[in-house]
């Protein structure tokens, strides 16, 4: 495994210099159980992942489609907690340099205590935090607290975000911007929207941060297409499907396929 840089920013810069896209797989902490997800994290790191998005499960994942809902319910049923997810992070980081973004909903970390969560997450080696139900401006005090922490606050943009809001959303965000490729919840899709390239280009006009695209990416062809228009590719539900079908090895092979698809695109026209 090549020794990758620690910060998200460095990670994007390095891939950019190589003309390659950043591949960001999502996994649900504790799915199908804690030990398997730790195993999976290692396998993903060895299969072309540049950054890991580690989901802390929540009982009411209203931005997620059926696959991530199912993985979240199962992980909770298996006893995963915020503390358990931070423990997985810590164990993974003892022998990996790969940046990790924690992905969750607000309530579990509010109850854990936002200050304590932020410092334990940073101590455990997390580089970023993405909260699906904390849109820009929703809670300025809380947002400032996260921005002031050692973690990058990963902001999300949607196709419905008006142009006038894009700059405000990006402000305070760091690491990268997550562009939701379509209106809807997470989940693998056959088709990507035709105007994706134009939309990403419009965002890039006003924003300096690298842009990663997620929601619905499930094939090497799609990963290649997305890598052609953005700096990063996020894959979640399709990876969980691959895990369900082929175990940790199957998930690794699936990610490797995406990696190859993305890397092939740079030598294209």
């Amino acid at each position, binding site marked *: 495994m090549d020794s990758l840089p620690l910060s998200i920013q460095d990670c994007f810069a390095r891939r950019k210099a190589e003309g390659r896209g950043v591949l960001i797989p999502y996994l649900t902490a504790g799915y199908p159980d804690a030990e398997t997800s730790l195993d999976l994290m290692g396998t993903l790191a060895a299969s072309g992942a540049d950054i890991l998005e580690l989901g802390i499960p929540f009982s009411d994942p209203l931005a997620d489609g059926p696959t991530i809902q199912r993985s979240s319910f199962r992980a909770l049923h298996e006893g995963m907690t915020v503390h358990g997810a931070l423990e997985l992070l810590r164990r993974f980081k003892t022998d990996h340099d790969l940046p990790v973004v924690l992905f969750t909903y607000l*309530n579990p970390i509010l109850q854990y205590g936002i200050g304590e969560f932020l410092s334990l997450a940073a101590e455990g080696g997390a580089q970023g935090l993405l909260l699906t139900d904390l849109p820009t401006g929703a809670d300025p*005090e809380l947002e400032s607290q996260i921005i002031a922490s050692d973690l990058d606050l990963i902001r999300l943009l949607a196709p419905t975000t008006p142009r006038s809001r894009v700059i405000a959303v990006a402000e305070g965000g760091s690491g990268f911007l997550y562009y939701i490729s379509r209106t809807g919840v997470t989940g693998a899709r056959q088709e990507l929207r035709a105007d994706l390239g134009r939309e990403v280009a419009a965002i890039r006009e006003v924003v300096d941060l690298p842009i990663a695209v997620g929601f619905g990416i499930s094939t090497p062809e799609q990963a290649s297409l997305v890598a052609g228009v953005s700096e990063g590719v996020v894959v979640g539900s399709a990876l969980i499907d691959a895990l369900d079908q082929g175990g940790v090895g199957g998930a690794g092979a699936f990610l490797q396929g995406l990696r190859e698809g993305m890397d092939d695109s740079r030598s294209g026209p």
Partner: protein
Amino acid sequence: MKVVSKQEKGRFGPYGGRYVPETLIPALEQLDEAYSVAREDQRFWEELDLLLKDFVGRPTPLYRPRRLEAELGLGPLYLKREDLNHTGAHKINNTLGQLLLARRMGKRRIIAETGAGQHGVATATACALFGLDCVVYMGEEDITRQALNVFRMELMGAEVRSVASGTRTLKDATNEAIRDWVASVQDTHYIIGSVVGPDPFPRIVRDFQSVIGREAKEQMLQAEGTLPWAVVACVGGGSNAMGIFHAFLQDAEVSLIGVEAAGEGMDTDRHSASLSAGKPGVLHGSLSYLLQDEDGQVAPAHSVSAGLDYPGVGPEHSHLRDSGRARYVSIRDEEALEAFHLLSRTEGIIPALETAHALAYLPHLVQGEVENGPILVCLSGRGDKDVAHVARLEQKDPTL
């Protein structure tokens, strides 16, 4: 958790807010804007008032139940008869108002969540009236408990989608409605059924429901020449309670009492009393009292009544609780069932099981306190929908 002091727009004290996926922010801004314009538009309210009069049958009567008074040994009691609204509950006050807003925003498709089915029926009714497409999300368990309402919605052309995830009740139906809205937001309006959800929903729903309290206050002054000593209403999400409380918020001498569902008892974890036993947390887009475990996972709620079976509560209630302006109590399933029978037997009015919780609290009003004046109860809905469910329950377990 630490609750910081937040007083900005869309908050009730620290509660409320817009904790939703980014995709929905523009829709909430659009709704906020459309409502700000409509609020100031005389024609909007004239159209709504006319619908409430001719289609819904407002104003609803204020009725004095003398046999119930005699039975309970207290009074004067007044029941605000929201059960006499078209579709059988207060929910229609909100759905018609929101439907007029949806029409102003050019949305052609309507979605809603429902627990007991009353809000689903009211939404299906409004959509039939205006010829809009309607999809109602309902938990699998509630579909069984409230089969009659499912049939009513379908009769009026709505599609009822069964929700099998999570606890298969109102909470999960709401998750699914929000997921639909995230995907369909450009042409769809989500008519939330209670004073819950992200801003501006809690204040829009409250405003549309506040007709209950405005009418009741006037009627009470006419009947008794005085304000009520206490106003009592059941609280799930809390829309009928907010609707009747709102007119009395500034009248400090009027006690406001919200009755939550204690389910199988407050000493068990089978209840829905968010304000009595929850902690502040974020669910369905707002910060409010929430039933949850130590790890911030939402705890399953329980109530014999599907409409109260919800782990959250409207953010304005959380504020009223903390400020002490309203107090919140709870009533167990079996007490509610007794009240369901009592009102049926003494007055010939079958109340909804939700409403029966408010009635069941009346005997708990402290003796002596009741000398202070008339008591106003929001009879939020009728119980036809519950008759089959109660019959089943009582055959299965005669002690319940």
